[in-house]
């Protein structure tokens, strides 16, 4: 997990990570243009995903600035940071969802199991099947609840027969903690559910295809504590096999579920560290300001 082991990406300015001394916190204000150097443990050994110098632009807006971050195997990484700091944008890079936004351009290197996902030869279909996603705004298909979940397994041919498909649907709904509420109305449109139910539907939909990495953009924002607990349990269970990246605004949640936490600010990745550490001994001034509620 050493910084030196990082391979450099040509054509970009060479990554120079420095561990800022805790006693001399990095300046709390950042010009929008400046490239911030990330403090903390950016890299892990044998990462599942390795991002190097990722930049995202919406037209001329520079939304994500030179971010490098590794996601380990069987790891839950939480991303926190003020609203609009680029968390969702960065998350969407990891399964190339930004392709669908017209004026959005991504530079930098993102590797999944050592393979550059932005490579032209990469097939986004298995990529996205391997890297599942739950969006910030629930977006159920205007189909029945059953069809919403069955969609993924069906296109990927994951079920041999009807019974198997049904089982996948039921297990996914159970895992997402939605089964009990809606088991009698599987043929109702997914759009007629309540906000929180829709969100869980989308989670169930994402896990129905068994992805290896799951990206969750505020998956519990519309959930009550109990439903939240179900999802958090699910994450814990899943991370024995998979990697999970979660964006959350709840520090408690980040603290509860994640192994490492990344703090974003104005498009920069300010600090990454083990979760215990970041919530107890943040290195960067901005991080500690945020955690203690001083930025705003």
């Amino acid at each position, binding site marked *: 997990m050493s910084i030196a082991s990082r391979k450099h990406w040509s054509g970009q300015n060479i990554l120079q990570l420095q561990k800022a001394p805790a006693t001399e916190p990095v300046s709390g204000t950042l010009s929008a243009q400046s490239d911030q150097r990330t403090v903390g443990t950016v890299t892990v050994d044998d990462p599942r995903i390795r991002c190097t110098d990722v930049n995202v632009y919406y037209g001329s807006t520079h939304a994500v600035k030179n971010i490098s971050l590794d996601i380990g195997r069987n790891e839950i990484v939480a991303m926190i940071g003020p609203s609009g700091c680029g968390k969702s944008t960065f998350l969407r890079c990891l399964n190339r969802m930004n392709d*669908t936004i017209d004026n959005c351009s991504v530079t930098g290197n993102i590797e999944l199991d050592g393979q550059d996902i932005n490579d032209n030869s990469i097939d*986004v279909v298995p990529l*996205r099947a391997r890297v599942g996603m739950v969006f910030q705004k629930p977006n159920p298909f205007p189909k029945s609840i059953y069809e919403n979940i069955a969609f993924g397994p069906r*296109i990927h041919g994951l079920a041999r027969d009807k019974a198997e498909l049904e089982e996948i649907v039921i297990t996914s709904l159970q895992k997402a903690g939605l089964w009990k509420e809606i088991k009698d109305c599987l043929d109702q*449109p997914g*759009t007629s559910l309540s906000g929180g139910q829709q969100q869980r539907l989308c989670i169930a939909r994402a896990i129905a295809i068994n992805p290896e990495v799951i990206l969750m953009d505020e998956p519990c924002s519309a959930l009550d504590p109990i439903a939240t607990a179900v999802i958090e349990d699910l994450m814990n269970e899943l991370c024995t096999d998979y990697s999970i990246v979660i964006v959350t605004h709840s520090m408690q949640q980040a603290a509860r579920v994640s192994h490492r936490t990344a703090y974003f600010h104005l498009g920069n990745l300010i600090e990454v560290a083990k979760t215990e550490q970041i919530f107890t001994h943040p290195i960067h001034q901005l991080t500690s300001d945020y955690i203690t509620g001083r930025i705003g």
Partner: protein
Amino acid sequence: MPTSFLVLLLLSLTAFSFILGRRRSLAVSAGDIRKLNSLPGYYGYYVALWCGVPALLIFIFWHFFEGTVISQLVLFNLSEHTASQPEQQLNLVLNEIRNVVYGNIPATSVAPEITAAANHYRELQQISNMALTIVTIVLAMGCAMLARSRIHTEQRARNKVERVIMIFLVVCSSIAIVTTLGIVLSVLFEAIRFFQAVPVTNFIFGLEWSPQTAIRSDQVGSSGAFGAVPLFTGTLLVSAIAILVAAPTGLMTAIYLSEYATPGIRSLGKPLLEILAGIPTVVYGFFAALTVAPLIRGWGASLGLDVSSESALAAGVVMGIMIIPFVSSLSDDVINAVPQTLRDGAYALGATQSETIKKVIIPAALPGIIGGILLAVSRAIGETMIVVMAAGLAANLTANPLESVTTVTVQIVTLLVGDQEFDSPKTLAAFALGLVLFIVTLILNMVALYVVRKYREQYE
């Protein structure tokens, strides 16, 4: 005052009263629009409506009756001899008088009595014109002032203006109903007369259509030559071929344009295809008869098939080309309107683009797409010229697209514009065909509505 000038004047009065109303509302609220019940603009519209609408109604009403009234007055003053002519003849006399009034024929070339009448006519016209000008302007100004004086802060001008708009909307929607009624009425009575001559059952279930011969040999009813079945099967066949061409091509084009094509190609391709809808059907008729039909016949011959030189296939294919834009453009619009979040949802699950389109986007856009296809089908059913020129007029009862068929509309047109006879079932048959076609398509549409309802997927 010339009519156009009066209209202009009324329009500017209306515009002015808008300003008046707005001003007034600001005045009563002492410039603080927060005190007003509605936005100042609504008070403006309120006064403008009061100014314009009654005056305009009077204006239209006046013009509707002005001619008749003046004519009656002029005729009243004509000499005994002229006035005693039959009414129809008087109509011609009036025309002559008017022709003199408008200087179409020189006054010297007509009888002095006509010249005098023309002068009288001119006078009356001037009076009427004067009166109209005064009445409308007074009315417009009066109503506007009254409306203006009634403005106060609590007045719910927005509700009133919106109610007027609502009335406008309702009136517009009722035009469709009135049209339907008109169409039914304009074919119903003649159709009933037809059915008095030819039993309904013969018409609907008869297998032979040969209107001309039936009259000649006076075998009406007994020979069953007014059997509409071949016409309806012909319509069905040609429309089916057309839709088999248009629906897949149109839909795939729409998908390609909205999902795959670059914006440049889309903004060029779509209007280009829309031109297809506007090419006159005569042109398609020539194209079908002289290019496509011989081509199909040639192919058929090389395959050893016996293709009629006028085949339903040629007409259907060309008709299909014509209605492609109905499917492609309408579908493109609704597909484009499906929210991006739905696409994102599918892509994120690893769906390929075509899977996303087939399983998410098309179902979500289905009502609009069906609407487009229905419109295309309708157009195909209603099309005439192509069939006349390329499929012929022979009423064959066949499902073979290589033979010639005829359609209901073709028969309606040829019966109506050909050498018609008074009250013969032949001419009346056109109306019966129209009526039955109307009913058949009505049933088809009800089925379509039911199906669309059943499979509709409402997003959000």
